[in-house]
């Protein structure tokens, strides 16, 4: 290779193009938001034409879609699911509950700001966001991937201690395997 930096740039552009057009989603239906996923995927809105497709397990998925409020109890499972996913991986926060708690702003057992516990790449606002909003969120994620700005997983690795401290603050009995992602 003549110029290693430039050739790496070209490879990145091609890989990001492929990542952009092939998004396998693991829809973690924690709350009411899960009901908006079937219309997004089926005949009416057909997300598959954009390359967005459901994945069956975290190992195969690219995007973790967190649909709605997260209770402290499900938070532990979400963290495990996120750490099982393979790089590069992205998180979409879906609905107002993941942004500021939404209508559960004063609840004692739901988390308020998802970004403190997992690195969120794109938020989709609304309660509930309609399928159009979900598709626009995916388009936003595609744009960020193409520009190489969807670096949530990298941030998570770099600031792991901060994230872990936050996570352990709300999960008192932390019995979790260590993943060597």
């Amino acid at each position, binding site marked *: 290779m003549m110029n290693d930096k430039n050739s790496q740039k070209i490879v990145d552009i091609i890989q990001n193009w*492929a990542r952009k057009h092939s998004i396998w989603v693991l829809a973690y239906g924690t709350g009411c938001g899960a009901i908006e996923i079937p219309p997004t995927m*089926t005949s009416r809105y057909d997300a*598959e034409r954009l390359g967005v497709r459901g994945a069956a397990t975290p190992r*195969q998925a690219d995007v973790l879609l967190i649909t709605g409020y997260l209770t402290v109890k499900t938070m532990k499972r979400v963290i495990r699911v996120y750490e099982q996913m*393979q790089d590069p991986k992205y998180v979409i926060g879906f609905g107002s509950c993941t942004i500021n708690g939404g209508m559960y702003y004063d609840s004692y057992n739901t988390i308020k700001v998802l970004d403190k516990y997992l690195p969120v790449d794109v938020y989709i606002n609304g309660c509930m966001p309609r399928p159009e909003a979900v598709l626009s969120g995916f388009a936003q994620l595609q744009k960020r991937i193409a520009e190489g700005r969807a670096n949530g997983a990298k941030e998570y690795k770099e600031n792991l201690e901060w994230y872990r401290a936050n996570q352990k603050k709300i999960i008192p009995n932390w019995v979790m395997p260590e993943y060597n*992602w």
Partner: protein
Amino acid sequence: METVLMNILGAVATFLVAFVVGMTYGGLSRKITARVQNRKGPPFYQNFIDAFKLGSKKSAIHHGAMHHLGPAFLMVSSVMTLMLVPVLTHNNWYPNLNFKGDLIFLLYIMTFGPLGMALGAGQTGNPNSAIGVTRGLSQMVGFEIPWVLALVSLMIQYHTTSITGLMAAQAHTGTWLMFSSPFAFIAAVMAMLGMFRYSPFDIVGAPTELASGPIAESGGKYLFVMMSSGSVFTFAKLTLYVDLFMGGADNLGILLIKTFALYLIPMLYGVTTPRYRTEQAVRWFWGWPSFFGLLAILQAVIF
């Protein structure tokens, strides 16, 4: 020396053609499924993008040596099947290893890949994988019976156990085996429905029921190898059917037309039918398909 080099080059070319054609057929099947469901659907080259993305994943976790080797077994089995099947009839560019009894050997080698895959899936420790493997082996017991009956009837009728022998028989009489031994063809096509694992026989990798079964713990590059080996295997199986029942193909265009016509059968049957349970699937294969297989044997013995 030159012929050896030509054979190796030809084998590589065959593999590449099989890969591209298999991937494109997979993409077309996604497109056609989408059109049947009144959707626009992904572009036909979507499978290539997916494969490239899976191949360029940065991390890939495995759960031990056997899990690491599982996809390799699958790939080896696919490539061996492809090498045994004559792709084009009068062409030296696509070589194949033919010998007496290669049809029997093919029956064994076609089950070798799934068995290696089963060992790999067993090591992940995922309960969904274990259930998927048991289901896959049960289903194999189901569709192997009509498939073997069909092949044995052909062997009895034409006194040969090699694929090229059967092709020569078709060239000699001038009629396709599809018409001269119709019962064998019906049994083999019904077995093909199970072989391709489209709905209603997608009980192995049911995504919502088993979390995709044996491949549940495989992501990234492992999935890429499995996907490409599946594509190669699809092409090899379709070409085998064309060779056995439709007289082979003289050039690539005719081969593509014939294989795609065959490929439409499991695909279109799949988009209109819901999934069977395991015991229903096995019972289905031991019903009419096996009956037609026995009829084929009778036809071969009597006529």
